[in-house]
């Protein structure tokens, strides 16, 4: 989708103002710790993919997405995911209280303290057996499709329409556009190099972009 999350190349967006590395705390308040933890823990319920959770954050109104701090966006996304999965109701979210004595079936997958270490250690690998053979090989020139889908997509707007050269084939990884809709399968993934001057003009000499793009995002160029 064309949303506020697709930030690459946006101008008039202000200075970076980084906090010093030695001074920035990992969390800036207690609620950030809790927002982080509930988001990671509920991810382990298996009710949605990481792509779906990204899509839930992206679908916010641009003003909300951009004025929210990071963990506020996580909470907004989590509320959407919980609602859409039927695990909570809007009234329950508002009240912070369950309106039913029954626990949802998904609670059987609750990430308990016992399971935590092994779940964290395992991670969630994204490589999957190939569903289609790769159409491109290292050195191929490819053009990113100029598309504007309403759904989730990981081809950033700033590179659509541009020509790059395949640098590496990463094998087959979960295809995010469909994974966001609950349909998990692999598709060929490449790393593609684009010249800065092609994207940003002559002021971007000596600058290149390396972007991971799935097979169906690309056309031969």
């Amino acid at each position, binding site marked *: 989708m064309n949303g506020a999350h*697709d930030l690459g190349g946006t101008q008039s*967006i202000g200075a970076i103002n980084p906090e010093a590395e030695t001074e920035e705390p990992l969390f800036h308040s207690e609620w950030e710790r809790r927002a982080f933890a509930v988001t990671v823990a509920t991810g382990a319920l298996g009710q949605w993919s990481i792509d779906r959770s990204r899509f839930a954050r992206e679908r916010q109104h641009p003003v909300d997405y951009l004025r929210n701090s990071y963990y506020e966006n996580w909470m907004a996304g989590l509320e959407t995911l919980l609602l859409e999965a039927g695990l909570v109701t809007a009234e329950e979210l508002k009240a912070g209280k369950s309106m039913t004595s029954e626990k949802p079936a998904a609670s059987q997958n609750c990430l308990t303290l016992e399971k935590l270490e092994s779940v964290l250690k395992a991670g969630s690998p994204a490589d999957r057996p190939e569903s289609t053979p790769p159409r491109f090989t290292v050195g191929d020139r490819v053009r990113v499709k100029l598309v504007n889908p309403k759904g989730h997509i990981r081809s950033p707007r700033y590179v659509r329409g541009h020509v790059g050269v395949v640098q590496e084939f990463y094998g087959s990884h979960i295809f995010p556009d469909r994974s966001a809709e609950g349909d998990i399968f692999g598709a060929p993934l490449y790393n593609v190099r684009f010249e800065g001057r092609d994207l940003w003009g002559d002021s971007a000499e000596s600058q290149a972009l390396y972007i991971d793009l799935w097979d169906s995002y690309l056309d031969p160029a």
Partner: protein
Amino acid sequence: MADTEKNHPHDAGHHHHHHDQNFTDPPPDPALRAMALESLLVEKGLVDPAALNQLIETYETKVGPRNGAKVVAQAWTDPDFHDWLKKDATAAIHSMDFTGRQGEHMRVVENTDAVHNLVVCTLCSCYPWAVLGLPPTWYKAAPYRARAVSEPRAVLEEFGTTLPDDVEIRVWDSTSEMRYLVLPQRPEGTEGWSAEELAALVTRNSMIGVETALAPGQSKSGDAA
């Protein structure tokens, strides 16, 4: 004429927005929102409070940029590991027991005299947790995400990092589950240093690519920023 438009003063004297939301209202208090979410999820049996605390503890004390610094120092001191890291970063890093979430698929990109690498995620905030921990606020915020791809030199300047014009800047936009770690250049004057000594020069920012590694005697700080 135009009489349909006059005589409708409607001078409410305040904002009159036609959005679904009214953006002049402050957003909901995040602390209350987090508390409501957690209470509800605990009550529903969807989260375990003890696991939540352990999760926070893990990222506050175990998983952080010291992991990545060890990887870098190892690569600086062990040519075989260096080659392995460049060929199969996932296996090389997993061999040091830095595994798990947001480190399942790793690639290491090496800085040289001719090439400087910089990592960003323009679409969200992908970051190699297993080696760097959770990302700093600026990495997740709009200005870095917007500008790192279109004006990386200006971005580097804001971190106090100035590169010669003929150095090619390669910006890695983390659009897939592949996670990128920058292997900074080994500082001069560190001949014979141990991996442990070298690791102290490897800042988090140097592994994102917004700074270089520290010189011997240089203190780690964000003074330049």
